[in-house]
């Protein structure tokens, strides 16, 4: 493999007559954090859901060099693509621990006990609350659980859709730091964020999405100094 774990080219997604993505191309190198930033309604969630296979789309998605066109969502999960969706989609009426064990559903024939310990080590808060119902957790805890559940699937590529949504700045920092640690441990991450400055700080590359198309892209360290971007996304 040439080093790109994920390659998206000319992706089109429509809701009825409205085209939400019009020809998006991006690549995610193995072991990097790539972030996608953009305003509300730019199509970030649509992009993540299309890549994951939750939404039907036109264009090519290559994962590990293989076209995903005919691969259903469940099979993508089994191959190590895990999405933490914007709405988290936890199993609200089930316990924290059940949520996590279900995260390992696609590989239930392997042992995942060690991974459960690993998730609890990364998120000690979840260990304290392992018998609590997921729906009764605080927003920050729910986000940790959503990430933990995805990690239980032993992902090769982690897709994170706005992990900071609705969270206090301090928790956002914790979570983004956690994402960085995951990258350091070898995980590849595609990250969608409103919080452009914080996400650029931990990313290797970034793409700026505007009304369904890529407006700018490049190494995160360059984009963060780009005056045009600074004006519109980094608050001056």
């Amino acid at each position, binding site marked *: 493999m040439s080093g790109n774990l994920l390659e998206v080219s000319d992706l089109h997604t429509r809701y009825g007559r409205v085209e939400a993505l019009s020809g998006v191309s991006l690549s995610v190198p193995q072991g990097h954090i790539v972030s996608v930033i953009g305003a509300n309604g730019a199509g970030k969630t649509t992009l993540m859901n299309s890549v994951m296979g*939750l939404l039907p789309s036109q264009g090519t998605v290559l994962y590990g060099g293989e076209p995903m066109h005919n691969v259903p969502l469940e099979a993508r999960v089994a191959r190590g693509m895990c999405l933490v969706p914007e709405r988290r989609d936890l199993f609200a009426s089930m316990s924290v621990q059940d949520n996590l064990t*279900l995260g390992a559903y696609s590989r239930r024939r392997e042992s995942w006990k060690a991974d459960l310990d690993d998730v609890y080590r990364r998120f000690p808060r979840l260990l304290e609350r392992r018998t609590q119902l997921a729906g009764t957790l605080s927003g920050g805890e729910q986000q940790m659980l959503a990430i933990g559940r995805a990690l239980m699937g032993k992902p090769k590529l982690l897709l994170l859709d706005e992990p900071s949504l609705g969270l206090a700045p301090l928790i956002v920092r914790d979570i983004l730091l956690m994402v960085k640690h995951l990258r350091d441990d070898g995980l590849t991450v595609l990250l969608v964020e409103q919080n452009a400055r914080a996400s650029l700080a931990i990313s290797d590359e970034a793409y700026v999405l505007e009304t369904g198309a890529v407006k700018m892209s490049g190494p995160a360290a360059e984009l963060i100094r780009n005056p045009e971007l600074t004006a519109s996304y980094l608050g001056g």
Partner: protein
Amino acid sequence: MQIFDPSIFPVLFADGLTNGAVYALLALALVLVFSVTRVIFIPIGEFVVFGTLTLAALQSGKVPGTLGLLLVLLGVAAIMQAFGQFRAGQSSRGLTTLVGGAVIGAVLWFAIGALAPMKLPLLLQSLITLLLVAPLGPLIYRVVYQPLQNATVLVLLIASVALHMVLSGLALVFFGPEGSRTPPFLSGDLKLGQVTVSQQSLLVILASAMLMMGLFFFFERTMIGKALRATAVNRVGARLVGISPTASGTLTFLLAALIGGVSGMLIGPSVAMGYDSGFLIGLKGFIGAIIGGLVSFPLAAGGAVLVGLIESFASFSLSAWKEVIVFTLILPVLLWRSLITKHIPEDEE
């Protein structure tokens, strides 16, 4: 007319509890099917009928009509499955599906044809009955509901009504117009103080309770059971951890058909069952399920037992009004539910 004669109460109570236990099983199946697939499974009653009539046919040494029904469904399902596989360019898989379906069909045809006239012991006949009735669930899911996976609750309901009519029509074709009863698994009575209860009644209550406990264990302790619950709680979340809605639906319908078939064998000795009896029986389970708001298992089971009790007392004191009383019950229940539940938008995900 003597309406209240307290000395008969224990007998009515035992009767009500026996039928109520079976309605409770049906209510659980309905809640399960609805919460996992959003299907209001009106044809559950047909599975009860199939259970009773299949066992009755085996009792008299005849090949049960269920076999024909099963083979027809197997054929349709295999063709649909293979068609999908051919279209996706997987022609060797499609061929395997067709050949596999034909082989399974042929094996069933010969095996049941040979076993049916042998008048095997009742327990073996019950197993054969389940072997014939249970697969109808997944096959019906494949043929009717899987293609409608993304349809609204209303469309699924319409499909259920249609399916109910088709199945009771097919039951007439395959089983004929006469009804039958099955023999009790246990004969004889048990004296509990002043009250005499038939051993069969106790068996029904015990078997229902055990089946419910088994289901409880399955949903609380096993990964697959939890996966079904997860699908019910959050469909998107379930897909994102790799639980396929099709697999969940198939398993759910297998469980529902199994529960329906067992219920049919349990209730068979106390009800004269005809090809068209399913609707009323299913409806009684349905009232229980409604009491549980189609989501709560314990409430649904409790409600269904209540239906059984009311039916039993009503049939004694006001027998002409029995069904009216039972079904009128649904009105106050609906009113009560609409008062206590918050309105949940249909497509929550």
